[in-house]
Every structure is written in C-alpha cells, then in structure tokens.
C-alpha cells in the first residue's frame, strides 16, 4: 500500500513537472532534456519524459553549452516557427541564414495591391546581377495560410515566373503568421472570406537575419532597396 502511495506521489509529481510552469529544482543540474522538435523553443526540463505538445521523447542536452548558433539578438532566426514551401517541404527560417533575404507578405487570391507588390519584387530581382543572384533569396509569405496551400503557392509561383530556386513561397500556422507579421511590422486583417487588408512592405534582411531595410508603399522607387541588397550581397 505504501508502495502504491509512493507511486501515486511520483505520478503526481511528474504530472506537475511536465506542465509549462515547471518548478525548477535548486540543484545545479548539468543535464537537461529538451524536445527534439523544439515545440517549446529551447526550453529544457530537468527530468526525462515526453514533450507535452508533440509527445516525443525528450532528448538530453548539455545545459553548459548555450544553443545560440551565433544568432544575434535582433535576428529573425530567433523565431522557432516551421514553414511549408511551395515544394511542400518544411523549413525553419534559420535555414535561410547566410543569404540576403528580400521578403514580402501577400496572399495569392489578392486582386488589388499584391500583383503590384509581386511586380515590385520581380523588379527588384531583375536588378540583381547574375553574379550575386546566388546570395539573394526572394521570399513571399502568405497571410492567408488557409487558402494558400503549398499547391496553390506552387501554381502562383508558376503563374508569376518565380520558378528559380531564388524564390521561396511560404505558409505557416495562423499564429506563426501573425507573429512573423508582428516582427516585420506588417499589419493585416481579414475583411471577408476572400480578402485581406494589409500593409505593403518589402523588407530586406542581411545574412544574419537582421532587418537592414524596409520599403513601404506600392510602386515606390526601389533604388534604395536594390542598392542595399547589392551592398549586402557583396
């Protein structure tokens, strides 16, 4: 009976530990456990177990070595979100690290400003010399992940002649999209099942993922944007 009591006790304790508000013990633990999928970012637990979100078994990590990967404070590569591309592959933003990124948020069923924004993006692409093209990626992030499936993004890429590897079209969860827009200072709102209002902003990120330049508005002179890209992609 006593054993059962202990078992229940232990069970209750583990239940408490696996919730988000983990009570850290005062012990100086050298080992910690983290979800392999990083469901809760870099959060670690001091006991082995399963991730509360994806249920995968936690993997041991050495807490002595912080997992910074040299990502700076202001880098968008701090965002842990996972996105799906037009080729239906999953990527984390930090896989883009090392390239200059030109980014815009659109939705494919948009009839108003988006075609012009897309034209602006292509206008920028056209001004990048061949030699530097490999160092620059042009990224379109959907603000309508419900409609913009990978297949839809693929079609959109074909229609708009964005077939080269330079072009990446992304969709993510609603929450991650809202968060990403918050980082870019892009505001958007669904105004009907088919339509969104959104800010028209093209952002340029350097190789470390820090915001280097933003161009706001439609059909604006993109001279500054292009020269910033060329300066970075050198």
């Amino acid at each position, binding site marked *: 009976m006593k054993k059962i009591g202990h078992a229940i006790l232990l069970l209750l304790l583990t239940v408490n530990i696996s919730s988000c*508000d983990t009570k850290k013990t005062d012990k100086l633990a050298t080992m910690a456990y983290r979800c392999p999928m990083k469901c809760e970012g870099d959060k670690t637990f001091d006991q082995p177990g399963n991730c509360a979100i994806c249920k995968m078994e936690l993997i041991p990590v050495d807490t002595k070595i912080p997992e910074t990967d040299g990502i700076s404070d202001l880098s968008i590569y701090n*965002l842990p979100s996972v996105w799906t591309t037009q080729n239906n592959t999953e990527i984390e933003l930090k896989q883009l690290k090392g390239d200059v990124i030109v980014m815009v948020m659109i939705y494919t069923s948009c009839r108003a400003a988006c075609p012009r924004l897309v034209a602006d993006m292509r206008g920028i692409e056209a001004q990048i010399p061949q030699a530097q093209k490999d160092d620059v990626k042009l990224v379109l992030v959907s603000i309508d992940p419900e409609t913009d499936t990978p297949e839809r993004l693929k079609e959109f890429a074909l229609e708009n002649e964005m077939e080269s590897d330079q072009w990446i079209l992304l969709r993510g969860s609603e929450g991650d999209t809202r968060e990403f827009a918050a980082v870019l200072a892009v505001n*958007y709102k669904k105004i009907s099942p088919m339509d969104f209002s959104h800010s028209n902003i093209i952002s340029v990120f350097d190789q470390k993922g820090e915001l280097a330049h933003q161009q706001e508005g439609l059909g604006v002179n993109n001279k500054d944007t292009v020269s910033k890209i060329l300066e970075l992609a050198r």
Partner: protein
Amino acid sequence: MTYVLKIVFVLMCTSVVHTTGAQENMARLRGGSYMPLYGTDSMEVTIADFLLDVYPVSNKAYRSFVKERPEWRKSKVKRLFADGRYLVDWESDLSYGNELPAKAPVTNVSWFAAKKYCECQGKRLPTIDEWEYAAMADENTADARKNGTYNQKILDWYEAPRSLGKEVGTNLKNYWGIYDLHGLVWEWTLDFNSVLISGESRKDVDKDSNLFCGSAALGASDLMNYAAFMRYAFRGSMRANYAIKNLGFRCAKDAPKI
C-alpha cells in the same frame, strides 16, 4: 499509512488546483454579435463564449513567470522580442523593487512577452474583438457604448495625468465581473497588428493610400465611440517588441463547452 494517504490526498488537491488553476480568476463571457469600430468598413463580428482574466497580470505574477523562464528576464531577453524599455523599472531580473507594488499591473512588457506568458498558463491573449466586447460593458449592462457617462468616464481616464502604480482590482467591476479594463493600463491584444492605420494618420488625406491594400484601413467616420477610436489608433501604432509604461495585458481562453 494514513499519513501517506494524507499526503497523497493533499497532493491530489494541489494537483487539481494546478490543472484548473487556469480558470481561477477568470470570468466567463457569453458570446454574441456586435458592431465594432472599423470606420466605414463596419460589419458585425460574432464572438464565441470565452474566458477572460478578471485582473490584468500583476508584477508579482510576472515575476513567477520570469523565474521559470530565464530567457524572459530583462538581462536575457532578445531585442527582437522586447526593446530596451522591457521591465525598465524593475530593480533587477527577479525583483521589481520597492517602488512598484506587487499587485500593480506589470507594464513595460512587449507583445511577445505577454503572448508567451499567457501560453505558459495554457491561455492566450484576447483578440481585439474579444477585448472590445468585454470592455463595452459598464457595471450593469453588457453594451454601454451608447451611455454618455460610460464614454465620459473612459475619456476622463485618458485625460487623467497618471494612474500608474495603482493596484489591480481598484477600478470598476463590470457586468461580466471583470476589473480594470478601463482606468488602469492599456492592454495588449493578440491581433493588435490587424489595425490598419499609418503612423501619421493626420496626413492620410488620401483614403486610397498606397500604404495599405484593401479597404479596411481605419477611417475616422464614426466617432460615436471616440475612446475606442483612440484604442485602435494606439494599437495601430504599436510594434510587437515595444515595451511601454502604460501598457500591460491579461490573458483569455476559449470557453469550455458546457
């Protein structure tokens, strides 16, 4: 033997409190439809039943959070997620000092921080529509927006020099049993960045401004609720890593089906 059982019993209780703790100090709001302030593009929104924290998150509660999540301490937080004003008045990482009351609402927190705090409680930030829905109530009615004294009270607060340092729960308890939606601090919402208004709205004479695509850009056509207009304008000028002195937050949750 009975001793062990007693311990088990006590632990079970705390565990129950622990799991239902998310609903503690939350009020349930009956959903409904209402016309929010969207300038000329007004349309009714429908809100499902939801739970909302009765009080804004206090300094003390926020300290427990940063204790458990070192990455949100003011010396550790990444600038992408919170600017240099983050918890600026706190004495140190884990102390808000003697100047700030434990029960005062935590302010100088960014949207990212507020969002993460709520997620860690098994909650989320309220949407703008939910927040405005809860906030249009006065003591006796769910929608007091046509009531002149209701509007005047809020505007009086907006004009008052400062209400900082006041403790949560000192302002009016509204129809839903929720305190401090007005009169204490402004609050973050989940989709604050769905307000389309440019920084210099006074300059935007041209309604078809090229800065925004679509027609939901906020127009000042309906000033029945001037106080709400100020809130939308404020939200529209925010960025997610801003930490501002008069801006706090509270959490919400989808209501469980009864």
